[in-house]
Every structure is written in C-alpha cells, then in structure tokens.
C-alpha cells in the first residue's frame, strides 16, 4: 500500500459540506483507517453450471466507497447481487465461497434474508420506482419493516428526501405518481427509498449510466456525501467517475470464461501505479 495521503479523505470541494443533512462527511469511521465490514473469501458463482465468477477474495472497508471496474460480462453485477443474496432469485444460480458482513455469514441458510437486504440496500442501473405515489414508494418498505407510526414515517420521508436533495422539488406533490419524475429524480428517489431503511451498506449497479450528464453529476455528488456514513460498493463503467469518487477500486476481467478479480487496492494506486499489466492497459484505455 502506498504511503501517500489518500486524497479522498478530505471533504469534497465545490459544495459546502453541510448543504444536506448528512452532516460532515467524516462523521462516520474514518476511511483512512481501514476496517473491513464485508469480507469475501474465494467467492465463485455460476449460472446453470456456467461459471460467471471465480475465486474472488476481497475486503470492503467500512465507510468507504469501493468501485468495481472492468468490461461488461466480467461478473461485477453478479458479485454485487451475491452480497445481498439477490442471486437467490435467479433460477440456476449457484454461489460458493464465504461472505461475511459485519462478521456474520451472509450465506448461512438460516439467515433472515429480509433483514440482510434491509441492511444492504441496492440501487440499480435503471431507476425503478414502483408505480405508486412518491410517498407510497418510501412508506411501503418502511411499513414492511415495522415502521408504522405516522409521525415517524413523515419524519423519515422528509429526512431522506432532503438527504437526496429531492425534498424541495417534490414536497408539494408527494401524492403524485413517482413515474412522472425525471430520470435523475427517479434515481434519487430510489436512493432515498434505500436510505429510509437505514442500511449500513449500499450496493450500486451503475447508478448513473442511464442518466443524462447533469443528473449523473447530481447523483455522483450524492454518492460522495454518503462516504463515512455508509459503506458503498459501486459498479461503474465510467473510469473517470470511479477515480473521482472511490477510495478503493477492484478491477475485474474475464479469464478462462469466468470473471475474476485481477487487482484490488486503493483507488489512487489502481489508477496511478497498477501492479498488473491488464489493469494498466484497462485504466489507460488501451484495452477493454
């Protein structure tokens, strides 16, 4: 590991740090002091006996943003989905290896998957608000997880919508269909929906790639603000974005028809002093 100070540990410049209610960026555990929250050991995954991911071992550090980069079809999304056991829903999908989240085995057969998914939220590439009102989109998952008190619901609704910078835009039309919002607003609503459940980990599967550049920048700013409070794992094809926001980066590549983790390390190191030739070629744009 390099001894240079990680540039991402300083607050992001450009916007005042207290513009949102997330508070100071470093209110959570410092990302300069790595403490693994998720430990993945020798994870392999196959669909209908065709391997998609082989032997991935990495640690994801608490309060940091970890970017997963690599070409399409190298198993990044599969890796992400195995962390919140969304792979359970795919027929023919087999997962092997160990996943520890907060020292608990996430693959234990007796684990309460609903509780796991409440703690490990997920944002998808295409914004997927439900065809309900904005309010119902946020309240329905909360009710399901036992938050039934009216004032508590209203409180969380306002807090999370403020957190994602959507409150002022939608406070007068909370009961209108969420699908009438713009793409960027929908994605922020999805983020708010995940945040309302107070997860500790957020998985993001190319959250900006279906958005226009301006909305994308807004969502990226938001992700920056999550640092410290949440542990974020983000899959992105946008290398510049990964470089801007991530503390750690993992590079995936296809080897022998299965995706593998080629290199993992501090973001700066992956982009500036990659240890592996493939990584160097990919981040410089020579391959991939």
């Amino acid at each position, binding site marked *: 590991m390099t001894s240079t100070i990680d540039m991402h540990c300083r607050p992001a410049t450009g916007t005042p740090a207290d513009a949102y209610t997330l508070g100071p960026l470093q209110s959570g555990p410092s990302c300069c002091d790595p403490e693994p929250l998720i430990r993945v050991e020798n994870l392999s995954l196959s669909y209908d006996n065709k391997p998609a991911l082989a032997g991935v071992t990495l640690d994801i550090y608490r309060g940091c943003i970890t970017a997963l980069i690599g070409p399409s079809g190298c198993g990044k999304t599969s890796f992400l989905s195995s962390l919140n056991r969304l792979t359970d829903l795919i027929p023919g999908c087999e997962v092997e290896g160990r996943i520890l989240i907060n020292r608990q085995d996430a693959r234990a057969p007796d684990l309460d998957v*609903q509780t796991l*998914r409440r703690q490990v939220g*997920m944002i*998808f590439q*295409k914004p*997927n608000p*439900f065809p309900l009102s904005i309010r119902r989109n946020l309240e*329905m*998952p909360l009710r*399901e997880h036992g938050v039934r008190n009216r004032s508590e619901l209203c409180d969380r609704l306002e807090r999370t919508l403020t957190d994602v910078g959507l409150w002022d835009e939608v406070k007068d039309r909370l009961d209108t269909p969420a699908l009438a919002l713009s793409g960027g607003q929908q994605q922020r609503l999805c983020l708010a929906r995940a945040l309302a459940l107070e997860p500790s980990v957020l998985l993001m599967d190319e959250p900006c790639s279906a958005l226009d550049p301006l909305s994308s920048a807004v969502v990226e700013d938001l992700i920056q603000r999550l640092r410290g409070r949440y542990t974020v794992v983000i899959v992105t094809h946008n290398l510049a974005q990964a470089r801007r926001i991530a503390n750690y980066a993992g590079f995936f590549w296809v080897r022998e028809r299965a995706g593998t983790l080629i290199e993992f390390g501090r973001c700066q190191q992956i982009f500036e002093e990659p240890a592996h030739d493939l990584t160097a070629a990919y981040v410089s744009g020579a391959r991939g």
Partner: protein
Amino acid sequence: MIWFKPSILSPSYADARLGWGLAAAAGLAAAILLLIVLLLLRESWPVLQRVGGVRFFADQGWYPAEEMYGLAPMLWATLAASFGAVLLAGPLGVASALFCRHYAPFSVARLYRRMVTLLAGIPSVVFGFWGLTVLVPLLAQFQPPGASLLTGILILALMILPTVALTADAALAAVPDAYLRGAAALGLSRGATIAGVVLPAARGGIISGVLLATARALGETMAVLMVAGNVVQTPTSLFDPVRTLTANIALEMAYASGDHRAALFVSGLMLMGLVIILAAAAWRLSGGRLHG
C-alpha cells in the same frame, strides 16, 4: 441518406398499400358492429314506437300475447347472475393467477396454465350438461327445484373463471422484472411485494380482464338456459328459478312474430346497452389503456 426519399415521413408504396388494407379490415370490423346495432334498432322499432320504451321496464310481467312486455325481471336476473358469477370468479381467478406467477414451481405453473386454457375452450353447452346432470340434482336435494339463480351463478362462474385467470396471469407477467428485483432488494416479503407492488402495477390489466369476463357472463346463453329454471320472475333469493334476457331470446325466437318478435329485439338492444356501459367503464377504470 435522407435525400433518397422525398421525405423520411412519407411511406413507400408497399407501406401505403398495407396501410390501406389494414384500414379496410379495421373499418369492416367497425361497420359490422354498427350494422348490428342498426339491425337491432330497426327490428325493435315497431314495438318501441307503439308502446314506448318505458313499458319494457314498467310492465308487471312478460306476457307478449297480452301485450305486457316487462323485461325488468329478466334484466335483474341477468345482472344478478352475471355479478354473482364475477364476485365468485374474480377473486378466484386473480388468486389462481397469483399462485401461478409467484408461488407455484415452474412445472406446476405450466401445467396449470394449460389446464386453464383448456377450461376456456370447453363449449358452453357442455357446461350446461354438467350443470343439468350434476349441479341441479345436487342442489335439489337441499332446496328444490334445484334449477335456480344459484346454479346459474355457479355455472357462469366456472365459465368465466379461465377468462379472469388468463387475463390476470398476462397482466402479472407484464409487471416489469425491475419492480420485483427492486422490491426484493428492499427486503420486502413475497406477500408485501404482491400487495404493494405487483397488484398496483397489474391493476389495469386485471380490471379490464374482469370486465371482459363480466361481458361474457352477460351474454352467455346456453349454459344458463339449461340450469337456471327459466321462470320469468324477479329473483328474491338465490334459490329462485330465473330467466335471463339471453335465455328469453333463445327460448322464444323460434315461434315469436309481430310485436312479440320486436320485443325480443328490444331485449337484445338492452343487452347491447349493458355491454357498452361495461366497455366504457373498463375504458375509464384502466385509464384509457385497455390493453397494456
């Protein structure tokens, strides 16, 4: 390469021909509907003009030979039988579609879907046979005479069940996967996903399916005629024998003449009116997106 064509918006000649052909086919379908309504109006016009429309609702009974044309009891019987059947088949059909889509293992769901499709193909007269030989005697043991509004409702419910189940199944299948994944990622249970996400998303399709089934129940003739007893009276209990408007037409058309015949056309007109009201309701309830 826009300069190869005078305008990118002007279709080629083959396209234009296809367009005209399709327009002609669509026009024909619409014209047939119009012609049927016109025929009904023309045939029922003499009696409507002579006795007026109100008497078809106000007359005390259906004695066409004595110029009493009260269709109201049969209208009530039609409505009661149809809505009773929808009340039974609606929830049952939606429940079976939900089971098929969200709970049943793949092989069971496939088999079940085929069976329901087959059920939809059974001719109504066969349902009538079954009702006449099984259902009516069974009910007669408890509440003679057996042939009644209730047997009519049960047979109709059986007949429209596949319509509801198949349209609801199609509506559920059309719910985007992204919603299901999103719901799972939020830690929603299967039940909460269905109640909170799937049913609201499929609502339009399910409602239009139920209304389609209602229209089918309103128009069904043969099976109901065979099991409902065919006594012209306003039903006061489920065990009263009743005659529906459709059954009335089928029973009397063969020998009716003059005003009697025209009065039967009035009942046809009435059925048409009901179906039009239903179609309008379906249109409104599904927000103008009847098919998807």
